[in-house]
């Protein structure tokens, strides 16, 4: 469960990026985190994963991310849009990541790397942009944490890789796992989402299951719902 009441965050105090964010996200779902450029989707994911310290009340899996407890760190994995690169192979990176996550699964890692056809022996910095992305996503999925936050994961992926990505995520979804994916590429990921969370500058506009959204808006077409919701605010 992810909960937030009046969560605020600003890189500088006078200019908040996140304002009055209220969230109530039960586990067992894949959330599409949608919103226009600059509304703070990436910032929200960083705050929820403990990388940035927000204000207000919020928790992930019952724990306050600001405390950065060991159990919390072991339960959350963030896949940022641009990750710091290492001049080592993915295998070497896995060797230093594995001990941090008790849930780490080499089975998932090997399957993901094989499906994505990542050149395993190559140093990450020598890989193409798309291969880097796939290597790092494979590693993050292998952490096998109950909370997985991904920021624009399909950016820079070719079409077959997007399909492999969807299969991997679909195979990892279960009732105990919460996956939040921020994206502009709704078409790429629409089938994966069963919940949709729409952000605007001053908070969350909508966060609900597609089923409820369908009843309320008369369509489950996410782009259509997004346009309706964002237009209402203007």
């Amino acid at each position, binding site marked *: 469960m992810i909960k937030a009441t009046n969560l605020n965050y600003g890189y500088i105090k006078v200019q908040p990026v996140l304002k009055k964010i209220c969230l109530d996200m039960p586990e067992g779902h*894949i959330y599409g985190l949608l919103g226009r450029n600059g509304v703070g989707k990436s910032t929200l994911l960083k705050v929820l994963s403990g990388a940035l310290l927000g204000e207000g009340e919020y928790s992930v899996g019952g724990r306050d991310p600001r405390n950065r407890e060991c159990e919390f760190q072991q339960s959350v994995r963030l896949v940022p849009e641009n990750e710091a690169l290492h001049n080592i192979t993915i295998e070497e990176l896995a060797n230093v990541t594995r001990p941090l996550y008790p849930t780490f699964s080499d089975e998932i890692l090997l399957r993901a790397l094989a499906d994505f056809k990542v050149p395993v022996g190559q140093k990450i910095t020598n890989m193409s942009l798309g291969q880097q992305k796939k290597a790092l996503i494979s590693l993050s999925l292998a952490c096998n944490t109950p909370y997985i936050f991904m920021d624009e994961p399909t950016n820079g992926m070719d079409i077959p890789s997007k*399909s492999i990505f969807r*299969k991997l995520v*679909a*195979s990892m979804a279960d009732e105990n796992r919460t996956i939040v994916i921020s994206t502009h590429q709704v078409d790429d990921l629409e*089938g994966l989402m069963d919940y949709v969370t729409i952000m605007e500058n001053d908070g969350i506009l909508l966060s609900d299951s597609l089923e409820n959204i369908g009843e309320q808006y008369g369509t489950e077409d996410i782009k259509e719902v997004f346009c309706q919701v964002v237009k209402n605010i203007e």
Partner: protein
Amino acid sequence: MEFQTNAQPIFMQIYDLLCDRVLRGEIKPDDQLPSVRELAVELEVNPNTVMRTIERLLQQEIIYSKRGKGNFLTDKAYDIILDVRVRRLMEQKLPALAEELQLLHFSPTDVKKRLEELMVEKK
């Protein structure tokens, strides 16, 4: 002008896809359906969305579930699906096509030959 989204919800697209498989004879009475997880991975969708499809199929008695074993096709599945699909063809798809044909000044005989050709090709 208001545009309508024709896109069906994804769980209904999955429903149609499974029904197509039944109509083509790929799934027969008492055949076991792939598991929710297998379908989710194959179709690259959320397992919860597949569950919504399964619930619909159960409710319409197109499938039945054996506890702990999975979901199986009922004896009457083919007839139920055929009935729904024929009605959809007659009440929605053909009227829409008729409207388009009139707009383009086609008569039914104009398309009859082409239709026959297409159906032979498919066979």
